[in-house]
């Protein structure tokens, strides 16, 4: 802060910073919250079924729901263990 602003008590216009930060975090949190509740359950079930046939790490199965225009895309990504 310069000595001028010290004397005149100039304050920073920080509201725009607040607004930008909120826009980002709210959009992010809405995207997370809008996912249906069944995704974790589905992931658990998939792990159970797949591990019947070969060993799989629960973290290697990713389930996600994405919105693409008018469609919702259920994406299931399974990483097979190496050495098979």
């Amino acid at each position, binding site marked *: 802060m310069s000595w001028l602003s010290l004397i005149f008590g100039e*304050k920073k*216009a920080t*509201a725009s910073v*607040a607004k930008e930060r*909120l826009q980002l975090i709210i959009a992010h*949190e809405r995207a997370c*919250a809008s996912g249906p509740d069944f995704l974790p359950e589905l992931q658990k079930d998939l792990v159970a079924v797949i591990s019947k046939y070969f060993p799989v790490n629960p973290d290697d199965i990713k389930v996600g729901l994405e919105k693409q225009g008018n469609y919702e895309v259920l994406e299931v990504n399974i990483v097979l263990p190496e050495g098979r």
Partner: protein
Amino acid sequence: MTTIITVTSGKGGVGKTTTSASIASGLALRGFKTAVIDFDVGLRNLDLIMGCERRVVYDFVNVIQGDANLHQALIKDKHCDNLFVLPASQTRDKDALTEEGVEKVLKELEHQGFDYIVCDSPAGIEHGAVMALTFADEAIVVTNPEVSSVRDSDRILGIIQSKSRRAIEGREPVKEHLLVTRYSPKRAHEGEMLTYTDIQELLRIPLLGVIPESEAVLQASNQGIPAIHQKGTPVADAYQDAIGRFLGEEHPLRFVEYEKPGLIKRLFGGK
């Protein structure tokens, strides 16, 4: 027909109880038979804000558990004829608010011909807050122009949209209203504070009103008189306008523009 209004915010200390007290009083002043219920079990304060703390004998949990009937627990307001306060329990566990119990009490109020039931939600997103919004027809989301309050309001909106009965049963969704409180037109004008339009843009729900930051609120709570009775203060007028809008009237926003004090005001320090 009884309308259940939940006053909620997620964050604490933003003015939920002040708002519940003033909105309930304002509705009663307009002739509606109104009940205001404190859902903050363990930390009741609505009784203090309404100035009836010494008349509490039975509470909400007593009624739920059948230790008292509703008639015994409802406290008649000092200032409005058709306003009644149902205080929260100070000693019980918050789990005492069961969904069936809350529903039973709300149904009974409906049978008694209440027009409006105002549910004063506790802070947070836990059991008490969820119980307060479960049966809501309309929700007033109280938000301060401050980052944590805005974020928490967005969270609570998500909870209203997923956990209210209306959402679960797929009925018409809870009608949401934004009430910005503790607003300082000067600081917003100088870019130091989020403006009410910023907040509305972020939360994307209709604006019910803007309540200015004011000394009158503390003076009101000191005396146990809801702020809406502080006649002639901007806070009371802003609450009156908000109630009018809630009932479908049109009122221009007041107390949101900053007017630079004139030379005389600056010299003589008028308010």
